[in-house]
């Protein structure tokens, strides 16, 4: 049996390759994702090893649940640490995530890509992962001196001795580039820009006030680092802790892995879509193959093979195809990893290059995915094969196994679809964590349901889609239409694969355009201000990066601006849960920001350590106005805070305090937002150009009008959409290959028919046209179903998110139409090979009667 199956695979190489392509693409996406993330993980591991190679103990501010990186503690701690027995060297340092280097044209370096990291220069070489490159200057030694990493220096075209502008805590300042540093032997630290100052200077530029962000300790030989950490901890004041270098390294690695985990789950989700689409194709292929081999299989049955044996033969055949596809898929995975890296870089994520890492896990998962996908897809067709009666070998009409009735199909399909919809709704209206899983599951089950129902729609829809064809292309057009109608199941399952891809693209497109519409509504409602200023850096995914405190002061000097109002952001803990807290100037906020406050909430919140809360949030927390609650701040610890009022607009934040309260409880590093209104008689444009010199000087700040904010947000949404669409592209390719596959098999099946058409006078061009339009109908059919599902899905998700500020539902008609047109074009492309095959078909093959 195995031999027969193996021979059968080899005998049909085209079929093998076409089926395998679906497997190869699916597997390569999975392995590519693994290779990609494993490679980055390894790069980070090497990096961390290097950073912590000399550090035995690390002293830092205790941040607990706040998990902040550069929190300061008093500088005098260093002297105490140095006194501890077993400490060989202790180096104090400061760090910043918000410093910004400007290039020669005054533009911020790095942009949306890798971050800028600011450090003080470590005096002890063994504790300092950076070193000055040979013959490229020296370490920073005092005020006005800076060292940059080699990669930044060369890409920005700087040279030792140049003057470089860096925006720090005190605003933009000029420094002399005194040296070029490398990271061990590496010129680049994963693409990050690294800025290094002498310690005192670093404190000034990063806004540290006789404070340190960390102390790296090297133990004396033979001293155990665990013990040393404990000894050091004993001399530390509260709020400062000592951990071993290894612990800190592991913490960092865990943080990085968590981030990468999200990325790889995201990528694997898209790989999952491709595999799902691939399953349709593979199942379809096996079904057609079995239909074509009915006689052969029946003959096997007639000469004594059991149904079981036939089933096994088909499964073994699937095994060989799956094996082949998986192996090739793993190899192609390398290319895919490079592709993913390229795609990420294209949307500005700045992933460094490096040699790719293949772990045994990747191979095992890749093989498993390929084999299980193929075998599982072949299960139903194999079952069908085992049901072929032996008489089918002898009688033409017996070759048809009885079909499930339309009625049964409609019932079964509706049931499956219903189940999918239930999952979807459960997902849409439950908590976020499980929601994604449920929505994904619901979507997958719904797709299966629709694909079960699709054959019912295949005939009428093909009729409508193909309606103009006979008029336009005569018999070729007519036959193309008839061909898609005669095997509705085949047409439907071929189209289903494309449906899934198109539905997801349509969903994301609808979702994106609804988001855009909502964003624009929200922005115009929320910001009465003429201008909003914010940082171009994003060092924290949840909080807006602070702009230098000096900026707001400078802005206030402009006569063109009537109101300048800053807003600050920070994290707090309430009952152990992390929340975001926003702060504003109660006197001016009303002129620039829409809060819809109740009563005199705005004037009351001016009182230090009082706050106002959104009414919806008040309710959900069970608070009432007048309550005193305990807020835990990173810097000041637990602070009793009175709720003095409420407001209605919860689109932006749930809790606000005054800037005064903020400065009292946070380490003030600058404003996240600065709102400004143009003075009377000054247009927004005029105000914008008036302050342009200041904005330009800071380099890392943008001053935007409302419509610019909207455009900005829209651009980001478009980028995300492009990324998603790019990732879905593979699923669409698999689907299009599926059309090619089905058509090629159909062409073989119709050898006689095509030969006959050729015999009675159809020229090759007409044959090609016939096949081409058949593909176009199938593709359009799939795309129409997909677009419909995508829109429905988009609509329900937007509705479900109405509470989250989604006011608008918008269908981008242009893009939807484009998707349909592209699907039709994809059909044309899919048909190239089968159409060619058909037109080259030997006329005589058709008329030979064996």
């Amino acid at each position, binding site marked *: 049996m195995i031999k027969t199956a193996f021979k059968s695979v080899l005998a049909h190489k085209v079929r093998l390759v076409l089926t395998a392509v679906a497997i190869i693409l699916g597997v390569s996406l999975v392995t590519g994702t693994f290779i990609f993330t494993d490679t980055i993980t390894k790069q980070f591991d090497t990096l961390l090893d290097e950073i912590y190679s000399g550090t035995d103990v690390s002293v830092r501010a205790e941040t607990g649940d706040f998990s902040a990186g550069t929190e300061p503690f008093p500088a005098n701690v260093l002297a105490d640490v140095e006194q501890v027995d077993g400490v060989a060297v202790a180096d104090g340092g400061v760090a910043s995530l918000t410093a910004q280097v400007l290039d020669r044209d005054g533009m911020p370096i790095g942009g949306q890509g890798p971050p800028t990291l600011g450090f003080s220069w470590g005096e002890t070489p063994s504790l300092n992962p950076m070193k000055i490159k040979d013959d490229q200057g020296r370490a920073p030694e005092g005020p006005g001196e800076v060292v940059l990493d080699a990669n930044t220096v060369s890409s920005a075209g700087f040279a030792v001795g140049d003057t470089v502008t860096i925006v720090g805590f005190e605003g933009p300042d000029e420094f002399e580039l005194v040296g070029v540093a490398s990271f061990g032997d590496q010129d680049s630290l994963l693409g990050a820009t690294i800025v290094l100052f002498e310690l005192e200077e670093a404190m000034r530029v990063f806004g540290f006030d006789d404070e340190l962000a960390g102390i790296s300790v090297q133990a004396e030989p033979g001293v155990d680092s665990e013990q040393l950490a404990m000894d050091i901890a004993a001399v530390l004041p509260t709020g400062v802790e000592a951990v071993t270098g290894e612990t800190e390294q592991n913490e960092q690695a865990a943080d990085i892995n968590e981030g990468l985990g999200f990325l790889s789950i995201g990528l694997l989700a898209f790989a999952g879509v491709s595999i799902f689409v691939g399953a349709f194709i593979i199942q379809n292929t096996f079904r057609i193959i079995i239909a074509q081999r009915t006689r052969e299989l029946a003959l096997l049955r007639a000469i004594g093979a059991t149904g079981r044996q036939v089933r096994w033969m088909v499964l073994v055949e699937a095994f060989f195809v799956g094996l082949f596809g998986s192996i090739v898929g793993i190899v192609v995975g390398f290319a895919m990893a490079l592709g993913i890296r390229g795609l990420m870089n294209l949307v500005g994520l700045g992933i460094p290059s490096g040699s790719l890492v293949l772990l045994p896990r990747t191979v095992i998962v890749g093989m498993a995915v390929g084999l299980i996908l193929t075998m599982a897809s072949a299960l139903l067709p194999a079952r069908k094969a085992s049901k072929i009666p032996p008489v089918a070998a002898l009688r033409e009409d017996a070759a048809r196994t009885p079909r499930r009735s339309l009625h049964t199909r409609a019932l079964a399909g509706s049931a499956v679809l219903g189940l999918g919809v239930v999952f979807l709704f459960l997902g849409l209206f439950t908590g976020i964590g499980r929601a994604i899983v449920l929505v994904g599951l619901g979507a997958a089950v719904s797709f299966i349901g629709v694909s079960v129902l699709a054959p019912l729609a295949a005939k009428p829809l093909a009729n409508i889609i193909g309606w103009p064809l006979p008029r336009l292309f*005569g*018999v070729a057009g*007519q*036959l193309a239409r*008839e*061909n898609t*109608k*005669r095997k509705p199941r085949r047409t439907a399952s071929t189209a289903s694969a494309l449906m899934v891809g198109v539905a997801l693209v349509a969903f994301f497109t609808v979702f994106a355009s609804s988001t855009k519409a909502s964003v624009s509504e929200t922005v115009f409602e929320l910001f009465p201000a003429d201008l909003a200023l914010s940082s171009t850096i994003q060092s924290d995914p949840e909080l807006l990066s602070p702009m230098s405190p000096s900026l707001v002061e400078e802005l206030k000097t402009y006569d063109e601006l009537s109101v300048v109002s800053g807003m600050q952001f920070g994290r707090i803990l309430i009952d152990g849960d992390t929340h975001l807290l926003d702060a504003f100037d109660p006197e001016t906020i009303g002129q620039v920001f829409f809060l819809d406050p109740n009563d005199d909430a705005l004037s009351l919140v001016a009182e230090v350590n009082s706050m106002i809360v959104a009414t919806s949030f008040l309710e959900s927390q069970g608070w009432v106005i007048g309550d005193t609650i305990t807020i835990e701040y990173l810097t000041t610890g637990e602070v009793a805070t009175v709720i003095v009022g409420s407001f209605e607009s919860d689109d932006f934040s749930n809790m606000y305090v005054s800037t005064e309260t903020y400065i009292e409880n946070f380490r003030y590093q600058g404003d996240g937002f600065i709102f400004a209104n143009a003075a009377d008689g000054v247009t927004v444009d005029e105000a914008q150009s008036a302050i342009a010199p200041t904005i330009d000087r800071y380099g890392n700040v943008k001053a935007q009008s409302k419509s610019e904010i909207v455009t900005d947000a829209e651009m980001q949404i478009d980028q995300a959409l492009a990324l998603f669409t790019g990732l879905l592209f593979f699923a669409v390719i698999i689907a299009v290959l599926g059309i090619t596959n089905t058509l090629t098999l159909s062409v073989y099946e119709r050898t*006689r*028919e095509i030969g*006959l*058409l*050729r*015999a*009675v*006078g*159809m*020229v*090759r061009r*007409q044959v090609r046209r016939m096949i081409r339009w058949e593909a176009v109908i199938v593709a359009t059919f799939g795309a129409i179903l997909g677009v419909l599902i995508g829109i429905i899905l988009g609509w329900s998700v937007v509705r479900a998110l109405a509470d989250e500020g989604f006011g608008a539902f918008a269908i981008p008609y242009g893009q939807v139409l484009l998707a349909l047109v592209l699907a039709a074009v994809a059909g044309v492309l899919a048909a190239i090979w089968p159409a060619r095959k058909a037109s080259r078909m030997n*006329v*005589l093959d*058709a*008329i*030979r*009667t064996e």
Partner: protein
Amino acid sequence: MTTTELTRTAARVENGIKSYGEGDASVHALNGVTVSFVQGEFTAIMGPSGSGKSTLLHCIAGLDTLSEGKAYIGDVDLASLSDRDLTILRRERVGFIFQAFNLIPTLDARENILLPLTIAGKDADTDWYNQIIETVGLADRLTHLPAELSGGQQQRVAAARALVSRPEIVFADEPSGNLDSKSSAELLGFMRRAVKEFGQTIVMVTHDPGTAAYADRIVFLTDGKIVDEMSDPTADSVFDRLKSLGG
């Protein structure tokens, strides 16, 4: 060969050789065949299985090419035509009836009959079409799909299709090979009438003496060579001739 001057030749083959395979393993399906088919005549090609009848038919009809020698439809040398021109020649000047699988399953009887014209983008000559339909006796079956027709009806649809474009010559390869005797008689009767009433030229391959008796002339083929021919045959005379050839 005096008749060729008086009557025109619809198709002919000169020294036709067709070989399959290379070197020692090569088979000569046609081994130097010279034959011509006269306009308005019903010719049968007879011979044992494997004698090259189908090959000969395919080569004259432009479905296959000769290894050596020449094949003509009218005055056109088939070897001189490109695939496209050959296809168009088949569509406009030649009709076919095969033993089976003559019809496109997705088209109904009427559409199948009109297929050569539709492919060419031409309108049917209504009088001619009606005349064929009437003669073939399928007026009430025109909207049926092939699967809804009997074997005999299917072959008559195929015959009607072969005639619809008024081809110069119709080739039929064992057209009644799969039919019972009644259906067979209906089909052959129709072909006979097409020759008598419309002056159609038909070349038909068969190995059945009864079928061959419908023809005006019979050409006998053995091992890829023409070995004999006879005119105005009857079933009995054909049977006798076959016996003498076989013995």
